């Protein structure tokens, strides 16, 4: 097997303000072309991991140990200019909220051509051609008109398509998709998921899919990493996780999902005891230094 595209090992981080642990010795390996689900409830640490990969950890979070190797190079121990270039060219983000991710005061053309001009050194004309090709790939009709538009003139689904085009524009090897469909209607969500899958196979990129929706994970991911309190609780193939989760928390989380196909299962909140056990377990661990 070839070397993983991303190898995070023993990554720990804490809050600068009160020293509270945010990540506790996280290990995560993502193979080339793989789709990895990163799931957990609020506060599990999934966004912190995503931000560490993208080199955009806020100053309120301090990494206390560990490495995050992208193609072998440790992102956490790299000088800023090299990090910027490496991530700018090789890693892309599909953000959650397409309205805030796009600059409301700039036309789509300007926003889609920034990356290619900066990292590929393309001139305006070539960058525009690339942007047009990108919009066609994400099945936007009238790409010429969309290039001239401002973000508010597009629907939520269209904006998300634009951001997907932007993410794939530089043919990155790794894409971090941070809850990219949470704000969308289910029918639009399905189209966007299908599009991400199609683009991914065309470009051979690995995708880290950050989400709290186990249904989305089941349909799009190869493997899943489940987090709680900054620690990896369970990791495995998506089928195993959905059909036979091992950890009690994983089982409880699955049982808590309302499902229209299983009304008799009812609503089962995660039992207090499961969460209490987990918290006690985490508290016993030596605090991250």
């Amino acid at each position, binding site marked *: 097997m070839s070397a993983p595209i991303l190898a995070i090992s023993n990554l720990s981080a804490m809050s600068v303000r009160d020293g509270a642990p945010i990540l506790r010795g996280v290990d995560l390996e993502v193979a080339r072309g793989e789709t990895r689900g990163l799931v957990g409830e609020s506060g599990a640490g999934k966004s912190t991991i995503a931000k560490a990969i993208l080199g955009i950890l806020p100053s309120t979070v301090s990494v206390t140990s560990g490495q995050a190797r992208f193609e072998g190079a440790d992102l956490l121990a790299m000088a800023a200019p090299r990090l910027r270039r490496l991530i700018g060219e090789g890693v892309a983000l599909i953000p959650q909220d397409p309205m805030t991710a796009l600059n409301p005061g700039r036309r789509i053309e300007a926003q889609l051509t920034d990356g290619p001009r900066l990292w590929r050194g393309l001139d305006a004309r070539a960058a525009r051609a690339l942007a047009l090709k990108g919009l066609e790939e994400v099945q*936007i009709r009238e790409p010429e008109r969309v290039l001239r538009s401002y973000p508010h003139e597009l629907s939520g689904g269209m904006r998300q398509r634009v951001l997907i085009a932007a993410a794939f524009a530089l043919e990155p090897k790794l894409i971090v998709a941070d809850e990219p469909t949470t704000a969308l209607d289910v029918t639009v969500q399905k*189209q966007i998921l299908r599009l991400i899958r199609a683009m991914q196979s065309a470009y051979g990129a690995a995708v880290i899919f950050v989400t709290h929706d*186990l249904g*989305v994970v089941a349909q799009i991911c190869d493997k899943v990493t489940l987090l709680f309190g900054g620690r990896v609780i369970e990791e495995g193939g998506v089928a195993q996780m959905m059909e036979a989760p091992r950890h009690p928390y994983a089982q409880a989380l699955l049982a808590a999902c309302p499902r229209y196909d299983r*009304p008799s299962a009812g609503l089962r909140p995660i039992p207090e005891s499961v969460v209490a056990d987990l918290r006690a377990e985490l508290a016993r661990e030596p605090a991250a230094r």
Partner: protein
Amino acid sequence: MSDDLLIASGLEVGFGGGKTLLSAAKPVVKVLHGVSLRIGRGETVGIVGESGSGKTTLGRALLRLIDVSAGEIRFDGRDITHLAERDMRPIRRRMQLIFQDPMASLNPRQTIRRIVLEPMLFHGVAKNTADAETRARAIFDRFSLPVACLERYPHELSGGQRQRVGIARVALLAPDLVLADEIVSGLDVSTQAQALNLLKGLSRDLGLSMAFISHDLSVIRAVCDRVYVLRLGRIVEEGDCEALFGAPQNAYTRALLDAIPLPRVDPGWLSRASLGDEPAAPQA
């Protein structure tokens, strides 16, 4: 007297239509095209639809928060369609709304105490502040909200706690009808299940009628007795949850159901075509 608490028939709502300075009439955009529904006593009804289906507008119209241009709304046997605000006042207590975003619906500058007690005093549900306080403490206890929360401000609470405060505030007024508009869409699944169970318990114990607006059919299935599927301002299908989910008749309902990703491995799901893929669907 009928078993229905609320009956709406032929509701139409349009926005716009004012005149510009040069007195050219602006076009009216119709959002609801003759919607009829009923909510029985003690019944929980789901209203499902995607963005732009008019589900939020419908909810607001049912509670007389916006005016309808046609149709009739009867609440507890009384026609309230054009009731003056003064006459609506006593009815307002009986029809309450739980908002989508508890952060936006709880005044950030008021303590939880004030937020929870004030409506009880305003509507005369509680005799005095002490009485209101006793009632609030009782319900906080029931909702597993620490009493210390009363002293706090909304931003000091977790999302799940804020949502429970929103539900408590409404429950304390002992309404007959509660409209819940997408109240769990931003919550984690465990908090979501908690909030939904609370509401189910309330409706059972107080005999509440509920209208549950959501885009999530799985959530609707878990809490509702009956469901209306709304599309572009029209009801395309209605029925008992059991029947509708078991054998949806309308193509749009089927597409909505099929678009929901379930937490089980289904290799064909992603490539299965769905209604949203129609080339005719407007993109912009």
